[in-house]
């Protein structure tokens, strides 16, 4: 059973509303597009209409002469330095120089008095292209003689990974049963509602300021410096409120950011860019579409012995963080099941499609879909219960996986059991009528990982004389509630109330450097930093109080805006009063500081051994579906999940994260598919790119989320990841539920009505054939 919540918290563990909810619900929160600077110009980007072409000449003279146009830039206006996050694979340019590699690649940009003039000017820029042969399929791209996208990448291999832990050949030889399957996943988009937006200013002192909607402002800051060839000290990135991110480009410096600042230099005025939704859906940062081969060897009783996973991913035109993208599926095959022998090979191929990167769960959901679908197939072949096979192989706390993950807290068995209870599995499985079914899928995720050089988080807690606290971190709230949870941690430690804590948005001039918001790291990493910073401030205050009460520092308690001696509450004073004593009488301005890093070494993503994260989370998801045999339409009629988040610092926010991630997974499983024909996106609009809607959701009574509490000793107040893992397990849960409902196994995403209808017809005709015989 799960461990009960421990400790006697005033704020932690309570469903406090989000700190920024009030200004968001009144429309006051300023997102990047809501900012208007005096004299501001409007920018637009010219994009390549060709999937692959040489640029032989660009003539922007007619655009420059259009009344209202103030500046035009092309690739030649930049220093020609390639930038990117991973040192080995930097291949982005602010604007294309000599070559375009996908339909949508940025070629030139215009700043004008308004958006209409800027758009008109784009039509006047003449670009002479020499079209080149293009390649749109990852396997085709890797064949000799295929069109080459980047000089440095032979056979278009953008990233590759190969590792083996244990001895897979031996493992297969020792297995009683082998199962091999092929799965295919589709490209999907983040689908955040706020398009990318920024305002760039290059002032007369040669200082650059960028106001932008970013989830990792410091990455943007460094990449701007890299691509512009200008030191970071001359660049300042100021974060605005972020209208959803999910790694859809807001984690990096984008061409719009570079163009905004350079057009500002040329025009002497601030320049604003906002993507249209057509642009958002056309440009890169997709989830990698993958071809997945998975071979698994098991004992008769279902014990997993060996797995061999092979992946070919269409990476699109650029690298992004492709090395990490390719490492993760093989690494995460080690969780949440115990597999003694693991072999993994992955290739990420450049193609002339929009480029791929991370998206809520990165490349983990794809492999969870394959693995947890196959587990059900194996269970059926061996006449085992699909739950039993999961529980039999469940990793336990304290184990070390073959690839070197050190498993600390890990309530996976509890997750499976809680999901079963919540869903009424035992009453339903095998007892539902035809076309209704129930299935389970499981997953694991990290609580932050060291993926680049800088991975530490730092926090500053500035205590003011009115007894309030200004919390300064380098972390970004993209809607997940970092501002709230980090403020809760500071408030809990200092014994003040939520409304006493102010949370600052990132400004690279004043906030501490931080890698940003990704891999579910903020609550864990920045949370630990905030806790240390608040404890530092509390220690400074406790020293003043201990002196005043003539007692030991350890005896001082901070709670409910009061400070008192543990066993003698007569000796107490208000928090505000204590701050004044410290500041006014003793000249001590209270500033707490804390930093956290996991201390793990950077993993070589190509060879794969090492402990990626300080804590791992398991989750289990059960889905109930109903299939309409006339239309092929799938209705999700029930959804239950259990997630080991360590300790839910704010149960309402955890629930919002887990359910939101789950529904995103449902979107990938049932509806979403960015359709490309010869590199052209055919559905770049929310009209045609279908995301889940209110009516697609099950009734509230049939939705459940259970927290499995394991109180991770290395997380702040026991907390671990909660925002991504749930998106991974749900896809296999749906595949397994569909199989239960129809007897048809779907191995290719999405499970769209056409595929389902076709498969149902085929299985019906097979049944008729069998009956005729």
């Amino acid at each position, binding site marked *: 059973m799960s461990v009960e919540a421990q400790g006697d918290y005033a704020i932690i563990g309570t469903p406090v509303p989000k700190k920024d909810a009030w200004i968001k619900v*009144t*429309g006051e929160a300023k997102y990047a597009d809501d900012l208007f600077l005096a004299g501001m110009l409007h920018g637009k980007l010219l994009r390549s209409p060709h999937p692959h072409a040489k640029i032989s000449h660009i003539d922007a003279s007619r655009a420059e002469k259009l009344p209202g146009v103030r500046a035009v830039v092309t690739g030649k206006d930049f220093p020609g330095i390639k930038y990117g996050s991973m040192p080995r694979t930097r291949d982005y340019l602010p604007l294309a120089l000599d070559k375009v590699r996908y339909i949508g690649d940025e070629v030139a940009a215009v700043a004008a008095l308004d958006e209409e003039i800027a758009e008109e000017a784009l039509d006047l820029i003449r670009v002479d292209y020499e079209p080149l042969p293009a390649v749109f399929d990852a396997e085709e791209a890797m064949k000799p003689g295929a069109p080459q996208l980047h000089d440095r990448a032979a056979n278009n291999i953008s990233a590759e990974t190969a590792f083996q832990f244990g001895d897979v050949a031996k493992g297969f030889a020792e297995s009683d049963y082998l199962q091999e399957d092929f799965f295919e996943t589709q490209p999907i988009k983040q689908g955040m509602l706020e398009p990318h937006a920024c305002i760039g200013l290059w002032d007369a002192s040669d200082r650059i300021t960028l106001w932008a909607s970013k989830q990792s402002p410091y990455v943007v800051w460094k990449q701007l410096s890299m691509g512009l060839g200008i030191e970071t000290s001359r660049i300042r990135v100021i974060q605005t409120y972020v209208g959803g991110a999910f790694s859809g480009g807001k984690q990096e410096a984008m061409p719009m950011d570079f163009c905004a600042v350079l057009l500002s230099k040329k025009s002497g005025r601030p320049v604003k860019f906002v993507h249209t939704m057509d642009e958002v859906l056309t440009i890169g940062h997709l989830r990698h579409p993958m071809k997945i081969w998975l071979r698994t060897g098991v004992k008769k009783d279902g014990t997993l012995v060996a797995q061999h996973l092979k992946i070919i991913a269409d990476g699109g035109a650029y690298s992004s963080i492709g090395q990490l993208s390719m490492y993760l599926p093989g690494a995460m095959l080690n969780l949440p099941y115990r597999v003694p022998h693991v072999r993994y090979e992955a290739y990420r191929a450049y193609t002339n499609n929009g480029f791929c990167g991370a998206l809520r769960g990165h490349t983990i959901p794809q492999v969870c879909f394959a693995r947890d679908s196959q587990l059900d197939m194996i269970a059926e072949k061996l006449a085992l219960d699909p739950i039993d096979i999961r529980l039999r192989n469940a990793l336990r706390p304290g184990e070390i996986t073959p690839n070197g993950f050190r498993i600390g807290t890990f309530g996976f068995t509890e997750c499976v059991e809680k999901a079963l209870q919540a869903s009424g599995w035992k009453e339903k499985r095998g007892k539902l009528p035809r076309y209704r079914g129930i299935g389970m899928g499981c997953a694991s995720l990290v609580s932050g990982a060291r993926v680049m050089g800088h991975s530490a988080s730092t926090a500053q807690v500035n205590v003011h004389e009115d007894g309030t606290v200004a919390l300064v971190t380098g972390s970004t709230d993209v809607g997940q509630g970092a501002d709230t949870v980090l403020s809760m941690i500071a408030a809990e430690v200092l014994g003040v109330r939520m409304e006493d804590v102010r949370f600052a948005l990132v400004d690279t001039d004043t906030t501490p450097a931080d890698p940003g918001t990704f891999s579910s790291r903020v609550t864990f990493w920045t949370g630990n930093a905030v806790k240390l910073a608040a404890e530092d401030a509390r220690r400074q205050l406790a020293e003043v109080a201990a002196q005043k009460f003539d007692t030991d520092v350890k005896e001082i308690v901070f709670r409910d805006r009061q400070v008192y001696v543990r066993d003698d509450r007569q000796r107490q004073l208000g928090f505000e009063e204590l701050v004044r004593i410290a500041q006014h009488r003793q000249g001590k301005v209270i500033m707490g500081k804390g930093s956290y890093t996991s201390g793990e070494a950077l993993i070589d993503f190509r060879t794969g051994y090492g402990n990626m994260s300080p804590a791992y989370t398991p989750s289990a998801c059960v889905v109930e579906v109903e299939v309409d045999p006339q239309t092929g339409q799938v209705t999700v009629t029930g959804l239950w999940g259990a997630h080991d988040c360590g300790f839910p610092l704010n149960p309402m926010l955890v629930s919002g994260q887990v359910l939101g991630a789950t529904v995103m997974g449902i979107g990938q499983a049932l509806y979403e598919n960015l359709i490309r024909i010869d590199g052209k996106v055919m559905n770049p*609009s*929310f009209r045609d790119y279908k995301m889940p809607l209110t009516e697609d959701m099950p009734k509230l009574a049939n939705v459940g989320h259970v927290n499995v509490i394991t109180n991770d000793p290395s997380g702040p107040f026991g907390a671990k990841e909660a925002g991504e893992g749930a998106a991974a397990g749900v896809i296999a849960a749906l595949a397994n539920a569909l199989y239960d409902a129809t007897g048809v196994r779907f191995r290719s995403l999405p499970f769209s009505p056409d595929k389902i209808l076709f498969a149902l017809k085929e299985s019906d005709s097979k049944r008729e054939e069998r009956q005729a015989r």
Partner: protein
Amino acid sequence: MKHASPISLKVNGDDYELSIPAWRTLLEVLREDLNLTGTKRSCQEGQCGACTVLLDGRPVYSCLFLAVEAQGKEILTIEGLARSAGALDPIQKAFVEKGAVQCGFCTPGLVMATKSFLAENPNPSEEEVRRAMVGHLCRCTGYFQIIEAILAAARERAGKGAQA
């Protein structure tokens, strides 16, 4: 040069005299001319609902609605719903308390749509809420906490016997 026409708009009870090209949308005029940026610009083709405002109490996608067509009507935007955090509409309060706000970009549109919906249907079923909000995308929440908030707001209004 662009040909501008004089128009009169009544927004959140205030009268505005403007001179704008006739093709400009209500969304553009609200945001760019009146600085009412609470109404969000997202898909700009009537799919996401983030730009929803009320015209004589009925919800419209302001990205698909010409400003000139809004003349003579009472326009209500999110800024007109509550002037201060202390005076939140029960709908806004429910969105805050139920966790219906994450990134918040869809929120103003959803709040405005809910305002109109609950005025017409003060005691909706969960099914009716789901049906009514189908024109709004939210990528963060999975909608459950939004549906809960709308039902909670309806209960709150019923409790107070509110008609507004």
